[in-house]
C-alpha cells in the first residue's frame, strides 16, 4: 500500500498499463511537454517518448476522432480532453462513432478507447469551466462512464478501462486530484466496472454519491452520526454500467434514500437513479427519494454564490433530517 494523491494514482495506472501493453498511447492537449493541465501525465513524455505521449493541437473533435480510428485499427489510445467542458466539441465523435460503431457494424468493429477528462466546479472558474456531465455521458448506450472518488478506485478503474473493448469516458473531479488515499501496489490491481462501493455501512438512510459528491455525502454522514442517525454511504464508481442492485439492497434495509450530485437536478442522473429506486423498492420507502444537486443555474464566479450552487454536507444532512 502506498499513500497517493489521486493524480499520482492515475499516473501510476497510466505508467503500468503502458508498460504492460505496447498498444497503449496517449494523446491530448498539453499532456506532454507541459505535463498535463492537472499534472496527471507529468514525466510520461520523458519516460515513453513522443510516439506514445503526443501533444495535440486544440482540436477536441479531431483528436477524439483520431483516437477512435486508431482504436478501430487495433491500438489502445487514451485521449485526454483537458477538461470535460471542452468535451462538447467532441460530443458527436463520442456519441455517433465511439458509442455506436460496435452495434451498427453488427460487432465487426470495436472502439477500445479511453477518454479522460477533468470535471466539476468549486474552483471559481465560472459557468463555462465548471461542468459536471457524468450523467450526460451515462445517457448514451454503448459507453462506459467511470467517475472515481478516491485514489485507489482511480487507479483500479483506469487500469480496468484499458482492458475493455469499448470506449470509456473517465471523469476525474478536479477538487480531489490532490486528496491522498491508500493505493494497492499490485500491478494487477483492478476495480471492476458496475460494482458500487459501500463506503460506510449504516441502517437509517442510504446516501448515494459519485465522483466528487461522495465527499459531502461522507461528511454529512459524520454530521448525522452526531444526531444519532446512522447513514449508509454508497459510491457508485461507474454510472454505466450502473450497480443498481447494491443501491436497492441498501434502500430495502434503510428505507430511505438521498442522492447527492454536483450536476444540475433537472434531467440529471439523480432523476434516473431515483426512478430506478422507485421501480425496484417503492414498497420499502418510508419517504420520497430526495435529491441534493447542483442548483439549476450556470455556475456563478463569486465564491459565496458558487458555494450556494453546489451541494454541501449541510444540504445533505438537512435533506436526511427532513425525511426522518
Amino acid at each position: 500500500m502506498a499513500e497517493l494523491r489521486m493524480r499520482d494514482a492515475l499516473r501510476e495506472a497510466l505508467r503500468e498499463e503502458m508498460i504492460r501493453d505496447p498498444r497503449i498511447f496517449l494523446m491530448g492537449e498539453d499532456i506532454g511537454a507541459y505535463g498535463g493541465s492537472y499534472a496527471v501525465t507529468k514525466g510520461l513524455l520523458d519516460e515513453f517518448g513522443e510516439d506514445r505521449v503526443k501533444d495535440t493541437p486544440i482540436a477536441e473533435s479531431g483528436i477524439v476522432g483520431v483516437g477512435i480510428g486508431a482504436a478501430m485499427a487495433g491500438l489502445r489510445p487514451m485521449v485526454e480532453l483537458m477538461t470535460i467542458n471542452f468535451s462538447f466539441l467532441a460530443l458527436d465523435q463520442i456519441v455517433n462513432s465511439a458509442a455506436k460503431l460496435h452495434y451498427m457494424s453488427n460487432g465487426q468493429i470495436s472502439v477500445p478507447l479511453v477518454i479522460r477528462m477533468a470535471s466539476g466546479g468549486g474552483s471559481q472558474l465560472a459557468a463555462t469551466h465548471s461542468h459536471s456531465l457524468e450523467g450526460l455521458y451515462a445517457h448514451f448506450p454503448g459507453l462506459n462512464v467511470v467517475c472515481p472518488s478516491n485514489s485507489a478506485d482511480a487507479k483500479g478503474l483506469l487500469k480496468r478501462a484499458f482492458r475493455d473493448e469499448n470506449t470509456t469516458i473517465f471523469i476525474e473531479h478536479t477538487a480531489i486530484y490532490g486528496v491522498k488515499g491508500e493505493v494497492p501496489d499490485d500491478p494487477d490491481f483492478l476495480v471492476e466496472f458496475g460494482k458500487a462501493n459501500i463506503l460506510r455501512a449504516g441502517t437509517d438512510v442510504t446516501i448515494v454519491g459519485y465522483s466528487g459528491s461522495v465527499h459531502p455525502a461522507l461528511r454529512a454522514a459524520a454530521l448525522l452520526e452526531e444526531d444519532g442517525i446512522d447513514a449508509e454511504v454508497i459510491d457508485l464508481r461507474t454510472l454505466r454500467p450502473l450497480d443498481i442492485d447494491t443501491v436497492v439492497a441498501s434502500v430495502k434495509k434503510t428505507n430511505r434514500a438521498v442522492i447527492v450530485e454536483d450536476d444540475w437536478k433537472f434531467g440529471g442522473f439523480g432523476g434516473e437513479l431515483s426512478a430506478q429506486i422507485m421501480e425496484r423498492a417503492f414498497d420499502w420507502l418510508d419517504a420520497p427519494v430526495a435529491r441534493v444537486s447542483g442548483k439549476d443555474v450556470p455556475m456563478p464566479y463569486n465564491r459565496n454564490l458558487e458555494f450556494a450552487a453546489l451541494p454541501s454536507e449541510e444540504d445533505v444532512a438537512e435533506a436526511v433530517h427532513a425525511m426522518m
Partner: protein
Amino acid sequence: MTHQQISLPAFNPPEPGNEQLGMFLYQMQLLRRFEEKTGEMYTKGKIRGFLHLYTGQEACAVGALNALREQDRIVTHYRDHGHALARGVDANRIMAELFGRVDGVSGGRGGSMHLYDVSKGFLGGYAIVAAHLPLAVGLGLAAKMQNEDRVALCIFGDGSVGEGEFHEALNLSVLWKTPVIFFCENNLYGMGVRFAESLSTQIPTLAAAYNMPAVSINGMDVLEVYRETQKAVQYCSTGNGPYFIEAMTYRYRGHSMADPELYRLKDEIEQYRKRDAIEALKQHMMERGMLDEGGWQDVVSRVDHAVDEAVAFADASPEPGLDTLYDRLMAEPANG
C-alpha cells in the same frame, strides 16, 4: 497567400490493360444498375429510411477503389453503396442490408448509410458529414505506429469542407504524417447548396494550405481517377504523409429519394449525362478495338443478372429476430 508547392516523386503507373478496363466497365455498370434497382426497391417500400444514390459518380469509386491494395482501409460517407461494391463487398449482402435483413453486411442494423465489411478493410459509411475524416487519420496513425504499409482512403463530399473536422483532420494528418488519401467527390452540391456558395475558396487551395499535395481531377474519367489514386497510394505508402484529391463529378439523381430537386435545372443534368463516365469508357474501349457491341451486351446482361440475384437474395433473407435487439451493444472485454 502562396501555395506550398510539394514536389512529387516521379511515378508513372503502367496503363491498365485490356482485362482491367473490362473490369472497370463491368463494375461501373454494376454500380449504375445496382443504384437504379435500389431506387426502384425504395419506391416499392422494400428499402426505407434515407437512400442516397450514387449514379453519375461511378468513375470515382471504381477508379479510386481499384487503385488500393488489399491491405488498405476505407472509410466513406453515407453515399456508400458504390464504394462498397467497387471494393468487392458482396452485392447480395449490400442489398440485404438495404432491406434490413440478417444477411446484410451489418445484419440489418446499419442500413444504407452505415455499410461495413471489415474483412475487406471497408470500415464504414459515416452519416455525419465529415465525422470520418479524423477517423481516417487515426487509421493512418495506427498503421504508421504498427509499422504496417497500409493507406487509409477517406472519401467524402464537397459539403464536408465547411465542417471544422475537415480542417482538424487535414492539419493532424500532415502534422503526424499519416498515410491518408483524402478523396473529395465534388459533385457540385451539398444537398441543394452549390459548393461555390458555401465555400470562400477552392477545395484544393485549402488542402494545399495545410501543406500536402492537392490535385483536382476529372472524376468522370475512370482512368484519370485510377491513375491519380495510384499516385496517391504510392506517395502515402512511402512515408510522405497525406495526399488530397478533388474529383469533379456529378450526381444524376436527387440528394436522396426525398429530394424534389428545386435547386437545379434538368438541362444541367442533361449536360453532364452527355459526359457519362460509362459511355466514355465504352467509347474508349470500342475505339481501340477492345470492345464490340456484343461484348457490351454481355456486360449488361451479366450485371442485370447480378443485380436481380442481389434482390432475390435480399428478399429471401430473414428479418433479424426481436430477441437480438440488445446483442452486440458492448464488445466483450479483453483479458488484458
